[in-house]
Structures are given as structure tokens and as C-alpha cells.
């Protein structure tokens, strides 16, 4: 069966030099190609793969979202932050932001800061 990659992926084939990257659109023919579809890495390229993957469009969208997290190396503790757009990855050498100074800020990082400020204000009002 065949699938078509929707993200660049490294080849694990022994005949390919280490570090070989399959570009987006590469068709993979393999008995387990449906697994790449289920993991949000590829779309079905034939009827056999479509049937084996057994996913509706919503499930596929969720799988793609989950794969985006995985590809960014996001730890399960930070899944919610990544999904909310607060962070997009981890900064090298501790030059990041966020609760532990390790995030690369995402497009919605300002929202995280706003919520933190609200929490601080609520705590201060509670202390008074």
C-alpha cells in the first residue's frame, strides 16, 4: 500500500545514506504505510491505505496536530501550552521564557503572560 508524506521525514532505509530526508509529497510504498497516516505524517495514496488507516477527517486533523507537537519535541507536560500557541519548542542554553525559562515563545505567548498577571493580581487581592 502507498501513502504520501505531508511533512519531511528522515529515511530509515539501509540503502539511503544516513540523514536522507524524504521531502513532502514523497510516496512511500510499504505494508505498514497506513501507520504513517494514523500518525499524521502522511495521507493515503491508494484505496488500500485509506481503508487500512480507517480515519475520518476529524481524526486525521487531530493526528496531524499531535504529530506537530511530536516533531517539535514537546514534552507531555507542555502539550497544553503548545496547543494554545504559548510555546513552539525549547530554547537552548536556558535563554527561554515561560515558567522554567525554557520555552521558545509561540504566537500566543502574550496570552500566557496576561493570564499569569491576572493570577498574580488575584493572589495579591486575596492577601489584602
Amino acid at each position: 500500500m502507498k501513502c504520501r508524506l505531508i511533512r519531511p521525514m528522515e529515511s530509515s532505509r539501509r540503502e539511503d545514506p544516513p540523514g536522507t530526508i524524504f521531502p513532502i509529497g514523497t510516496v512511500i510504498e510499504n505494508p505498514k504505510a497506513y501507520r504513517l497516516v494514523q500518525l499524521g505524517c502522511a495521507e493515503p495514496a491508494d484505496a488500500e491505505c485509506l481503508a487500512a488507516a480507517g480515519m475520518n477527517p476529524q481524526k486525521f486533523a487531530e493526528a496531524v496536530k499531535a504529530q506537530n507537537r511530536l516533531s517539535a519535541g514537546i514534552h507531555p507536560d507542555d502539550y497544553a501550552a503548545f496547543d494554545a500557541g504559548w510555546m513552539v519548542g525549547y530554547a537552548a542554553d536556558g535563554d527561554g521564557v515561560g515558567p522554567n525559562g525554557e520555552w521558545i515563545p509561540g504566537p500566543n505567548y502574550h496570552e500566557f503572560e496576561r493570564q499569569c498577571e491576572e493570577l498574580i493580581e488575584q493572589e495579591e487581592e486575596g492577601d489584602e
Partner: protein
Amino acid sequence: MSKLKGKGTSLLQDLSDTYTTVAQVLSLEWSGMQSETYEADTLDNATAGIPHEATGRTEFGTVSGELFLDPALAGHKSLIELLETPADENWQLNFSDNTTWSFVGAGFGLDGPKVVLNDGIKAGFSIKVDGTPTFPS
């Protein structure tokens, strides 16, 4: 010279001719890398110290870890398939600075699911390293 962060490290499995990240991994450990030696003492050794010599063989140990187990997840199903149909499998350990150690796993173990009231369902896993891994030069 730098101290790498643990977060951002990933374990990748050979899946359908591509390396795919294993999802929901909480921790990773590579243990038991040891070059083999033998005791090379002889009767005419006048010193107290016991000499050892290398055999030329190295045990490259086991890669283990823990993950939040999702039995419905395609990637975790692929791990279970390694138990149903044991076979050599290619793996990669990708550090947070994108350095990669590649290795072949000859055996796979799963210790779970572990179900408790106050936590997500977890499982431990282990991969027996086969032969010599590939380290960056």
C-alpha cells in the same frame, strides 16, 4: 561545550521506511554501555593491583524509558507489534541539539500498563541494543 536540556530529546522508531517519533515519552535512559575486560593477573605479578585487559568487545547496553501509554495510538500499537512479531528494529535517539545516536534494537520490552488513581496510564519500555550504534563523528 554545553549542558543540554532534557526537554526536546526524542526517541524515533523505524516505521514504514521513515523515522517516526515515539509519542508521549516521559523519560529516557541508556544504560549498560561497557567495554568488556578480563582479569589478566598472573602468578609472577609482584604488585597488589589486579591487572585487567580489554577483550575487544563492548556491550552497548539497553535504552529504556517511560511513557504515557495510549493503546489506541498508532505509534504505541507499533511498539506492541514488536512483542507480537519480534524483529530487529532501527531506532534513533535525538538530543535537544539535534545530535543523533542511531542504533538497532534486537529485543523490546514493555512494562505496563501501570494504572493508578492519581496519575495517567504509564508504561516502561526497554530496547536491547544490538551490535555497535552509530555515534556522530
